[in-house]
């Protein structure tokens, strides 16, 4: 199987996958940190289970959306020498493409007045 390189070919992403990619957007993180970040940012409404997360990381790694980061934080900060993951340029493109896709849907729903436009932008 030739690796997929076009961002669109990965769409749509599952919500856990999108959350994971977004969580990595501002810096390398290890698995537990990704879980915490997603829970925190969604007010605990999205809670990934650990097994699910690592299965997802595995798939994202195989697809080239993330890679294991070889830059480690300070040894003192490095928690039990966990593996850290980094968003690849492809991963970044895929996440952006998914968000564009979602935005287009939201826009369509607004035009049809399914949801109100936000008062202040």
């Amino acid at each position: 199987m030739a690796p997929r390189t076009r961002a669109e070919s990965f769409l749509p992403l599952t919500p856990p996958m999108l959350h994971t990619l977004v969580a990595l957007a501002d810096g390398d993180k290890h698995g537990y940190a990704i879980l915490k970040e997603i829970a925190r940012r969604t007010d605990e409404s999205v809670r990934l289970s650990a097994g699910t997360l690592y299965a997802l990381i595995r798939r994202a790694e195989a697809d080239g959306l993330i890679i294991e980061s070889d830059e480690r934080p300070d040894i003192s900060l490095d928690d039990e020498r966990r593996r850290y993951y980094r968003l690849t340029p492809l991963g970044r493109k895929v996440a952006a493409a998914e968000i564009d896709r979602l935005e287009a849907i939201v826009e369509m729903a607004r035009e049809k007045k399914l949801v109100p436009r936000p008062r202040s932008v």
Partner: protein
Amino acid sequence: MSPARRPSFAERVFHALVRLFPFDFRADHGRDLEQTLRAQHSEARRAGSMRALTRLWLDVARDVFTTAPREHLAVVKQDVGYALRSLRRAPVFAISAVLTLAIGIGAMTGMVAVLNTVMFRPLAVDRPDQLISISNQNGMNAYVSYKDLQDYRAETAVLSDAIGYVPRVATVSVNGSTERITFELVTDNYFSMLGVQPALGRLIRPNEGRAAREAPVVVLSYDYWLSRFGGDPSIVGRSVRLGGQPFTVIGVSSRSFRGTESLLRVSAYVPAWMIETFMSWASQQGTFEDRSLRTFSMLGRLRPGVSLEQARAALVVRASLLARDYPETHKDVRLRVIPETQARPNPQLGAVVRVAATVLAGLAALLVLITSANVANLLMARAVSRSREVALRAALGARRGRLARQFLTEGLTLALLGSVVAIPFVMLAMTALRNFVSNTTSAVAFDADFSLDVRVLTTMLAIAISAGVVAGLAPALAACRADLGARLKSGARETEHRTGGRMRSALVVVQVALSLTLLVSGGLFIRSLDRARHIDLGFEPEGMLVATTAPALQGYDFEKRLAFYRAGRERIAGIPGVEHAAWIQFPPLGIIGEAAAVTPEPRPSDPDWRAPMASEADISPEYFETARVRLVEGRFFDERDRAGSTPVVIINQTLAGRFWPGQSPIGRALIADGDRVEVVGVVQNGKYQNVAESPLGAIFRPVEQTSPVSASIAIRSSRSSVDLAREVRQVLALADPEVAVYDVRPMTEHLDNGNAFFPFRVAAFLTGLFGSMGALLASIGLYGMIAYHVSQRIREIGVRMALGARAGDIMRDVLARGGRFAVIGIALGIVLAAGVARLLEGLLVGVSPFDPLTYTAVAGLLVAICLIASLVPARRATTVDPLVALRAE
């Protein structure tokens, strides 16, 4: 965290849970996953709420038990995809491996289907597991009398109910067309005990047919109703002629119900009470009163919660009470109480059939092992030529465990493909076997349904998985041990790893040993068949033709039957070229025969004396001349022996010696089946029920005095049997067009299809087939091995030839290598075969399980096969051009 700290309970559970994930997953993320779980756990504990902890545990459990299987499946999918792609790239290899496995798996599945039918498939009735067969294990008659049946049925503490049934054959006439069917006379509780519902109309009612002159009724089987009456619902209430009498159809049994005999096709059921009203058989008069008339096959239903042993104990006590109350008739009764599944095809034969079927399935399992070893060898040969690819994958990060798993997946994929390929062939073979079994006789409707049901297919899957694992295991182990780095470094040349080489050699040796075992088993059965054919049967079957007729099927009475027998014999004796012709009730060694308890007069005074069973046949006076049976003393029957004159009997030497040792039995009397008969002659001994029997007493009574319900005409003639058979049918039709004539065939064919040789023929055929397949596969394995060996040593051979080695030396070396495997395999095989042969002992006739001739012949055959298999690559080795071989480097 200090390293010495003992892991907490939660940590140990997390560790165990992580182990549920596939190897690669664990290797990549196992530690992180564990750490994350631990972190989540301590967080929840810090929160201090029981709810948070519970939620975490539930969440973890759900997560692991859904994610881990999914990850495994993903790996399997990936492996299977890879296996399929790599097989597609090597179609010749793939096809030969799949076909090889299909042979083994198919053969074994076929045997499993047979085992299923004769031992496992439950009857299509309510709670079949509760059914037990109750029979008499002493003497030749395994059945029970009606009165005894009712007494056993009264053991209500252990049995909730019990039924009796008697299979019979009769002609059915509907709208002028006539055919013979097998039907059963059944006790009135038959359907209710079995829990069978009518598909149409109603079934038999309690006491139905008991009153004198009650109109005869019949229940049709669903299949018969469908095939003969096209499933016409207006059949209920209509009349059909069964055995010449009008019967009213009262209903059709349910679609799934196929009777209580796994090997018979029963087309109709008649209340047993009508046994007397519709067939004027003199001998059936006392069916419901006479305890010596053991007529019924019996099945009981265990009361819920009662074990087989408890039921057996209670019934045996009842049997001993019967023996006390009726010493005359019940002294020899020894009750056999076994599950219904162990009483197929009947309680007497059940044990032998089970042993034979199990042995054959065991031999088929050896064939599966050979095919798996063969495919393992193919896989390893491929692994060597793929070693660089494997090494490359390893270098790219595939772990050894993963590579081993890949080989196992390839083995499994091949085996599963093999079983898919095998299924249609097995189905064809089972249909052929079913026809083969039904064609052995038309006296009864044999019908063994060997179809592949869920049970067989599940077993087939298990066989395929085992075969796949065996095939993939050796290459997988070799892959685990292989020094992958060395392979990459070795450059262009693909070298066989030493472990792999040894394992391949071992596989070839195992194949040779296993195929020797199969061939020895086949050889023993073939020798056994040959011995059986040379056993003195006490008559001369060559040059004899038999044809069976059944005038009673038309409802003929005593006189009408005799009239037919006389007219028929007279016409046949008049056919040009017929030397002798005579009636015999049942030709010897057939599937059906009769036996009677016989007592000399006066009865021996010993209180423990029991009446022995003797084979019984009614004959017309010319029989012994026709069959060339020697008269030892007295006379044959003649025109003096008629209905109304003194009842007479001719006995064989065994019975004479037993009753009147050292004296002449002529003029003495004996009681047979309740009749007092006078001995007028003694004839030489013969075989009556099967060729392996120990000398058995036999009595012959004149047809003129007994008028049997059916009889076969035995004809001696030097004419070709095909011509004669046609003429025999014609003249019998002239004698009486109404009487059914069937199984017209040479006596030798009757013996081949009957108890005489049929079992030996089947065993010899199947084991011979398995053995030849095994030997063929082993020779292919050896060939592949030697050919590969030669191709690996082209350079070395080239150097040796350049240094002056002669072609003969090279050839000798290569042959010696093949010979070494053959010798080791044969030596191992002889030990294994001797062990297997011990199990066969009870199934062999006149040949020792260690018969030296068989072992020598088979070993010689395998040596020859191995030599031929090595010869081709050996010849190729001698044609190596040193220059070409060296330049290639």
